[in-house]
């Protein structure tokens, strides 16, 4: 149970980063659009239930990283649009930095092991 929860947390953290980056690149977008974009970019590598996006959106909005309002979509549907706030932009930068760092550290670990094996 606890193990499963940890996995989800990691996943949600990543998902939040993806949402922020998507909004950064594409500007204001509704939930479905964000989901589609994440799907497109990640391909089949990430099998995420689209539903899980909404709790993440709520969390980000509560944190003030994004804001939302009702608007009309491209095909005249009423939809809730999310956009990045100033706070969100800063958060994206920090998280990107953190992420890069983590990735670099992990990469270095793997590199060290590979050398040793030789």
């Amino acid at each position, binding site marked *: 149970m606890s193990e499963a929860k940890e996995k989800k947390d990691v996943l949600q953290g990543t998902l939040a980063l993806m949402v922020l980056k998507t909004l950064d690149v594409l500007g204001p977008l*509704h*939930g*479905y659009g964000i989901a589609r974009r994440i799907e497109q970019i990640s391909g089949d590598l990430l099998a995420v239930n689209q*539903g*899980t996006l909404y*709790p993440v959106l709520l*969390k980000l909005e*509560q944190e003030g990283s994004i804001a939302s309002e009702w608007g009309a979509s491209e095909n005249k*549907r009423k939809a*809730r649009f999310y956009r990045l706030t100033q706070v969100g932009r800063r958060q994206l930068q920090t998280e990107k930095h953190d992420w890069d760092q983590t990735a670099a550290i992990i990469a270095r670990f793997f590199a060290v092991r590979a050398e040793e094996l030789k």
Partner: protein
Amino acid sequence: MKTLRRFVRRLTSWTRTHRDEERLRREIEEHLAFQIEDNLRAGLPPDEARRQAMLKFGGMEAMKEDYRDRRGLPALETLLQDTRYALRRLRNSPAFAVTVLLTLALGIGATTSIFTLVQAVLLKSLAVANPAELYRLGTEARCCYWPAYSQDKEFSIVSYDLYKHFRDNTQGFAELAAFQAGGALFGVRRSGAQGSAQSFPGEFVSGNYFTMFGIKAYAGRLLNPSDDRPGAPPVAVMSYRLWRERYGEDPSIVGSVFNFDQKPVIVVGIAPPAFFGDKLSAIPRDFFLPLNTEPIVEGDDDLNQPESWLDLMGRIRPGAKPGSIEAQMRVELKQWLRSHWGDMSANDRARFPEQTLFLRPGGAGISSMRDQYEHWLYILMMVSGFVLLIVCANVANLMLVRGMERRRQISLSMALGARAGRLVRQALTESILLGIGGGAAGLAIAFAGTRLILDLAFPRVPGLGGVPISASPSLPVLAFAFSVSLLTGIAFGIGPAWMTTRVDPIEALRGAGRSTARTGSLPRKTLVVLQAALCMVLLTASGLLTAALRNLENQKFGFAQDRRTIVSIDPRLAGYQLGQLTLLYNRIHDSLSSISGVSAVAVAMYSPLNGNNWGGGVWVYGHPAPGPRDDNFAFWDRVTPGFFDAVGNPILRGRGISERDTMNSQHVAVINEAFARKFFKNEDPIGRYFGRPGASPGSHDYEVVGIAQDARYLAFDFDKPIGAFFFLPAAQYDIFNNGQTEPDPGSHFLHDIVVVTAPGASLSLPQIRQALASVDPRLPIFSIESLKDQVSGQFTQQRLIARLTSFFGLLSLALASFGLYGVTAYNAGRRTTEIGVRLALGASRMQAAGLIVRGALVLVAAGLAAGLPLTLLAGRFLGSQLYGLNPYNSVVIMTAVLTLGLSAFIAALIPARRASSISPSQALRSE
């Protein structure tokens, strides 16, 4: 989609922040609409497009919960939600809810009402300041009078002189108070008021008694040390109860003069309402008088007698160690005894080295009631605990059935993505809710039950205070009931809740409710076995107690009960002096005998099973003086001529007490058979002499003139053989050769008149009252009751315990049978097809029914087997309360087994017959 939308709406309708939910709902709808549109564009047929969209979106329920968890106060909201959901589910099945609530209320009510008594009798402190600072002398409650210079095991009560020695020398006590161990009955009449005196219980206490307890007067003032000096004007403190009930809180009572046994005493104040004295007793004290008024009021100077008659309790100084005070007091005791070396008998001196004392926490008072009822209360606590366990098992069974019925619904929830943890929580919420509901109803039952038990156990004497135990739940009782409810809620809910998580959605959704037939069967069977085992214990216990009670009531008492009426009086309260008594008894005899239909009248200090008796040492003339270890104890009674005929106690040899035994004739005694066996062994007792060491210096005081058949006079020691007993004439005063005056003047104030009516004649109360009034209108009559009632009154508490246990036993039998019925019906229902096949293949209906019944009886047999060792243990626990009845009484155990077996058989037969009456084709079609 429609179903989903409805489901979504339903889910949202009962959340608090409707708006957030609404927003989420719309977003989900939009999201799905986008996806469906895309899917349609990609060329999927509409149905498939929707399905794919839903699949892609994933578990709706889990997502929503996740969503909600991120909002507001999720824990509280979930709790509210679960509660609301549980309430709605319970509303939907009222039969289930009511059954469970009632069962629980009975179980929790029974436990709580017994706990109320346990709390009041065993745990509660006196209503005084800082009860934890109070320490008392002695480990047990002793009554009345004990030897002055040597006591068995410990010095538990002391003389006035020893009290003063301790008070003046023990520095560790801020206050050390003394008060009468036995209590007194005063004939009280307000000065100037009309009518005869009424008797009220009271006690003599030292002047610092109330200071030691740290309590303040409700009105007027309480006693102080200056009241407790020789020559101080006699004063008294009245209980709040008496002041309110009899005098309507009349302020003029404070400061007015009351006659106590004809002696004027000023009531100076009223004790606070919650204060019921230093001990919990069935009849709380109504008057408190200073020790030094004792010689004035009672006329027999106990104060300066060497006898021990005072309990001690003290408030220790802050920081003082009770252990070191105890050690110091032991030294003081030895010093005091040594300073009285000259007063001590040879036996006292021989026992000097072993004399010691103990100091114990006294915050709960000196409770003889605790010593008396502790064991009973533990028995009742165990019994009600067992009932509660059976109730839990039963409710757990009901919950399991409910779990089975709800399996499909749970499967659906899980298929929709509900988390298992949440479902368990919901099931638990439901059971805890039921537990608390049952607890609330149980409190009401507990209140009524406690009231009823108290009324039955301690019948209130009109005009006197009832036992100071409140039936209304106190804070600890409320806490107890609440925790019991919560625990039971969890206890019976956790199993079924856990089982819900083991549901495989696919299996359940497959349709047939029979697919996972085996799940849940084992726990339910275990519960039935447990119930049967507990039920057997309770049935046996109630059987044993009932049989013991019957033995008690139907024992050979050795005296006649029919046509005997006991009139209880007290000449002392009417102001009689020792010298006037013989005349008074003669006049009472003549006056009552003149009523038509009365065939005999006699007066005695105590009538049979009156509840009290005097006793002391015996020294037979010609035998060596009894040593300190010799058992020379015998009980005794003082009676007027004709007593033995009046109570129907046959004289086996010699004669009874007669008119010949006057003040100046040879002092005589009639002994019982046990006395003859104990003190004379093979010698002929008639014509021999004995004395009472302690009361007289010699052993030539009484000549044995008759032997009475053994009879039960004592209202205690029922489990022991009848002990040594002797009877002295009321007319003879013990004035011994050394010129010592009557040592026991109190024994001449006889309490009980035995009135015998001729067969067929009837005697009315006014006739008796009139006859006594013609003797002396001031003579107070305490009670008039038949000897039969007096005898059965001795067994009130045993009867109550036996009835309560029987009630609990039958309740548990009903619950266990109900549980077995449920399990059997359920199993029979599952085996419908099997039965159909068997019937089709030629089995008879009997055989089919037998199959089901056998399954049920196997469970009960397992329960009985498990219950047997428990039963034997319970028997041992009851042990001393059975008055000599063998706790492993095979008749009782067999009866319990048969009763349980028969009920189980009937409980199993009903569903078995129903199952086997099905037609084979119908059974097979139901597949």
